[in-house]
């Protein structure tokens, strides 16, 4: 549970006292989590400009550095930790146009997009967001050229394969929603393995919407309800919106309703993504193409979210 100790205790390094920044998302009982961005030197380890997370035991004041939290990005000063959205959804749009602008093949755009994706996962993880849902592949995307869809799914498979163990180590739970019946067997198997491997003790949940559509989600939820009625688990007169909501694929998370939806590339639509779940979600449309969407743009989105007055009409 507690972190590894450095060879030289931190009391003897430049970090002598740690400013308290936030305790709202401490994952360790009895410890206060800090975020420090210091350069520190020791006789055996040199880490320059690395952001670390250090923990101070509330009982005896001893300081530890958790290796698992190395390279965490500190929260920008313009963002307030208590106003961070719990669930952020992202429509990663614009890879193809980005590649076209650069004179590159479409595949290059998708590869560049994966870097932005990894970056946003890291930022969400670092800044206390509980759930990130990304629209990786829409049901509508199946009409794209077969070469492109095969490349995308292959890229997706390789990305999961390379990240599963690290996600497990960092407490990132991977969940996949969508109609997986059309996916290649190897990918289906990879998804099942990733979900099983990462399901324990999640500090952060990453939901990947693959072959997903909001309408499909509602339809499959209705089908599940119908099955329950057929099996005698439910009566017809009990069917209401709450019953349907419980059968949506986003019931895999404690926070199924996104607080913030970000869409890149300047399109102003939700494109059949999480239709049911977006009733009270704040929309942030950004003109940047997805491979160009980085930390600054994400901070802008979060800052905009935090500055808005949110109302739920008494139906949240």
């Amino acid at each position, binding site marked *: 549970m507690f972190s590894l100790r450095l060879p030289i205790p931190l009391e003897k390094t430049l970090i002598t006292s740690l400013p308290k920044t936030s305790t709202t998302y401490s994952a360790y009982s009895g410890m206060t989590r800090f975020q420090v961005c210091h350069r520190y030197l020791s006789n055996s380890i040199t880490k320059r400009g690395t952001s670390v997370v250090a923990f101070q035991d509330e009982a005896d004041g001893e300081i530890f550095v958790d290796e698992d939290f190395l390279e965490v990005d500190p929260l920008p000063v313009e963002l307030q930790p208590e106003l961070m959205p719990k669930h952020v959804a992202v429509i990663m749009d614009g890879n193809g*146009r980005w590649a076209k602008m650069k004179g590159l093949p479409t595949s290059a755009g998708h590869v560049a997009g994966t870097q932005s994706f990894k970056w946003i996962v890291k930022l969400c993880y670092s800044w206390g967001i509980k759930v990130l849902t990304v629209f990786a592949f*829409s*049901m*509508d*995307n199946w*009409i*794209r050229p077969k070469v492109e869809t095969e490349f995308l799914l292959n890229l997706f498979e390789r990305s999961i394969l390379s990240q599963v163990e690290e996600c497990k180590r960092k407490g990132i739970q991977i969940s996949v929603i969508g109609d997986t019946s059309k996916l290649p067997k190897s990918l289906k198997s990879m998804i099942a393995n990733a979900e099983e491997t990462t399901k324990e003790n999640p500090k952060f949940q990453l939901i990947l919407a693959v072959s997903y*559509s*909001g*309408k499909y989600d*509602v*339809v*499959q939820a*209705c*089908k599940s*309800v*119908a*099955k329950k*009625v*057929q099996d005698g688990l439910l009566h*017809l007169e009990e*069917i*209401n*919106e709450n*019953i*349907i*909501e419980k059968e949506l694929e986003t019931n895999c998370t404690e926070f199924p309703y996104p607080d913030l939806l970000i869409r890149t*590339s300047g*399109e*102003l*639509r*939700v*494109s*059949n993504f999480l*239709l*049911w779940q*977006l*009733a*009270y*979600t*704040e*929309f*942030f449309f950004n003109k940047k193409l997805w491979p160009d969407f980085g930390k600054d743009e994400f901070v802008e989105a979060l800052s905009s979210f935090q500055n*808005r*007055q*949110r*109302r739920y*009409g008494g*139906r949240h």
Partner: protein
Amino acid sequence: MNFRDGAHNLYHIIVAIGYLGLQLLWYFLQIIVSAWYYILIAGNIFESYFISYGVLKKYKSLHIGKLQYLAIVIESEDAHQTSKVVKLLQWLDSVGVKNVCLYDMNGVLKKSKETIFQTLKNAKSIEEVNEDVTHHAPDHMTLEFVSYVDGKEAVAKAANLIFVKNFKQHNIGGVLDHQISLEPHLNQALQIVGCKGPEPDLLLVYGPVRSHLGFPAWRIRYTEIVHMGSLNFMRYGSLIKAIYNFTKVRHNYDFPKASSQPSTRNK
């Protein structure tokens, strides 16, 4: 000792001056950012007035044909201002937008329906129009009034209707086995429970929050969503600009978008 005390005092003075300098710099930056923010707001207001008075020529001709069905979401608190809602509809009528869906979460607009129809002489309710609203002759406005109950609750009612019907016919197995066919059943059932309107091409949100506030989710798969600010500060120029931008921008759909009918498109 005196030298030491003097050095100590000098150090404190320098620190204090440095701290004051940083504070002044911070306030200066805040002023710059606030000024830029107000300049942007003023710019938007002036642009809106220039559009209203026809100064900006590019907004003079709108190709309304692309906008077949418009939805307007209004915060329920603002929806009580019936005169503003009527004014908004009159603006839309004047630019040629004839098919409008009005939504507020609590159904305030539904209660104001009679007043609105009395004020707008040439408007009809969608229930009165038999043919596809996107194809009727543009001699009158067609208005649809929608609230929260027409969204998720309507889907639940539609699902219930299907299950009841199929259980009576002992055919629930067919519904379960063929998930794809359930979608057209749901579309038909939604029509039966009263959700007749097509999918809007454009949805304008009047309110403080950039959210569609529970507009029927089934109908906004590919709808463009534009936040217009509070209804209290609605401007004709901003409305024209939003419609103009919709008609001019190339929409990057992943499929050929069908007409705005509740459809089983996108197979």
